[in-house]
């Protein structure tokens, strides 16, 4: 598979994101060191304490600053102690056009998976998580090649369609969820996407899969910045203070 992105650039981006993640953990580490000790005799409860529903603010913003993107995404998660069942659903469409042709696609996607919270002692219930997702997309795409000529083989002009193509992939996720005010939460999710498979049958190879991104790479990174509204289900047990 052709790797369009220079290896050094991809490595630098990956290192930058990982550094950001590690910097964030140090901020939480200070809070964790001053948090209270949980009574070792308290029983673990796996009953959900709340449901968070939100949207990806980056997707919404991209509709305004990107001429080639149109889409939205809604996210939801529910906690089972430190484990969170997360579901995403979205729609995106891309339109590209150059002097020698154009490309467009449109489709819906969903992701489902589990996140594991590593800030179980935070009284604000801020969250740093690592998780996984399974993603699936259904989309259609169209491409035109116009006015292109090869010096040996002649005209390359062509129009191609892919209809109702299905793609699926896997993700490793990490991110933050931070309580901003009462029921409003914000956070980011970094996604390492891999294992893409599509079922096209025609002459056209999918170029962009909604929810995944460019298909010319064996793996790719994605980022979301989400705003959530948390609906409490039951009172969240507060860890007791440490006896001095």
């Amino acid at each position, binding site marked *: 598979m*052709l790797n*369009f*992105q*220079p290896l050094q*650039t991809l490595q630098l*981006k990956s290192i*930058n*994101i990982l550094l*950001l993640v590690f*910097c*964030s953990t140090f*901020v*939480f580490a200070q*809070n964790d060191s001053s948090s209270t000790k949980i009574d070792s005799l308290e029983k673990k409860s796996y009953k959900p304490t709340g449901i968070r529903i939100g949207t990806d*603010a*980056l997707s919404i*913003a*991209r509709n305004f600053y990107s001429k080639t993107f149109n889409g939205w995404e809604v996210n939801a998660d529910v906690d089972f102690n430190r484990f969170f069942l997360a579901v995403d659903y979205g729609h995106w469409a891309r339109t*590209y*056009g*150059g002097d*020698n*042709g154009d*490309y467009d696609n449109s489709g819906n996607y969903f992701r489902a998976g589990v996140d594991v919270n590593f800030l179980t002692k935070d009284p604000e219930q*801020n969250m740093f998580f690592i998780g996984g997702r399974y993603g699936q997309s259904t989309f259609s795409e169209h*491409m035109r*090649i116009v006015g*292109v000529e*090869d010096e*040996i*083989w*002649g*005209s*390359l002009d*062509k129009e*191609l369609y892919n209809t109702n193509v299905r793609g699926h992939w896997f993700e490793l996720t990490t991110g*933050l969820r*931070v309580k*901003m005010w009462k029921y409003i939460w*914000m*956070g*980011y999710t*970094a996604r390492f996407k891999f294992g893409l498979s599509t079922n096209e049958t025609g*002459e*056209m*190879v*999918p*170029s*962009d899969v909604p929810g995944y*991104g*460019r*298909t*010319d790479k064996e793996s790719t990174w*994605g*980022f979301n*910045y989400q705003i959530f509204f948390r609906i409490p289900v039951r009172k969240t047990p507060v860890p007791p203070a440490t006896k001095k």
Partner: protein
Amino acid sequence: MRKTSWFIAFIILAASCLDDPDCFQLNNNFLGISFHVMGSTVADTLKATEISFSGTSAITADTATSISLPLNYTATGTDIFFTRSDGSKDTLKLSYSTKIQYVSDDCGSRYILSDLNVASHSFDSIRLVNTTPTKSGGTNIAIYRCPKVGMVGLTLQQLYITGTATQSATTRSTIFNSVTADFSGENFYVDQTASTLYLPVNLTQEFSTYTFDFADDFGLADSVRKLRLTYRIFEVERYKQCGNQKFIDSLKIDFANAATTFDTASIALDSDDDRLEALQDPAVVNVKLMRCPETNLTQVVFRRPGTTTATAVHIKSITTNYSSDIYYAGDTTSTVKLPLNPSASVNSTQFIVTYTEADRAADTISVSYTTTLDTLFPGCGPQVIYSDLVNLLEGGDTDVLITNDVKFPAVTNIAVEVN
């Protein structure tokens, strides 16, 4: 915490912008072909005067052991037509699947070829190595041809003495007037320089004779040498696709009755030290033709008094006390190679050097030495080995620099001081 979150949000926004891909070599539409001969590990050379393709009027030509040819990525197959330098033609018909993928506004789209298949061909044999065409390099198809044995390889070597008992042989580039295959009268290597030759053998009789006419001193005095090879010709079906073919083995060099007049010759050895008595395709070096070392050459250098730097002199003539030959007549040089008396029973030689300048007196070089007969190279027989050079005119203008061995190639034994 909240400020950190906003900071990270902006960083993510910036990082979320995708880099544009490079637009270099997007398509994998090149077919790599390597050429081989059945039964040989040596790569075969395609000498194609024309290579053409279906779907285009473009043609190319190449002489190589492997080539990379473009496939038509606007179709699902390409026919390739080869025309060789000997006029023979071959066809290769290929099929493959072609898919298109949009890359970017700048790059446009790329073509992805896969599932390469050989639909038909006219070569002796083909092996599909890799079904995915490449962007450049790599091999998809190996083409094999039936061996056609009929060429013998010969290499010319100079034997050397580098010490009292140290011998070596090195390949020597030699100038030819011509090499004639006596059975056909055909001339090869006319006015050419070569160190390795490939000559056809007589396929109608189990011997071949060649006449080598040298333009340099490889042939020594008479410049012509003859070589007679004998061998066995037999027919066998070694490869099914090739049917019955003639092969040649049991190669021998015939020295009887002066049929071979090189100083010495031998059958070459392979990497396992086995004699290469069978002719191969592609041809390999089967025979080594060797020139025995001249063991009596002493090198004389001319230099200014009190210096070690050589200086050129204008020589009128150099003569010896044992023959009427004249050496270096009319030459301007700083070093000369002079032959000591070749007789093993004589232990001294004298050279007279005269100069073109009328006011420059002649110089006499007189040396004595020890001679022993030794067989350093079996093919060369006993040769006179010279050692322990002594200047018989000590105190004069000559000085013996190295008193021991006279070697080949010659080393500087004597220095003559000239004003």
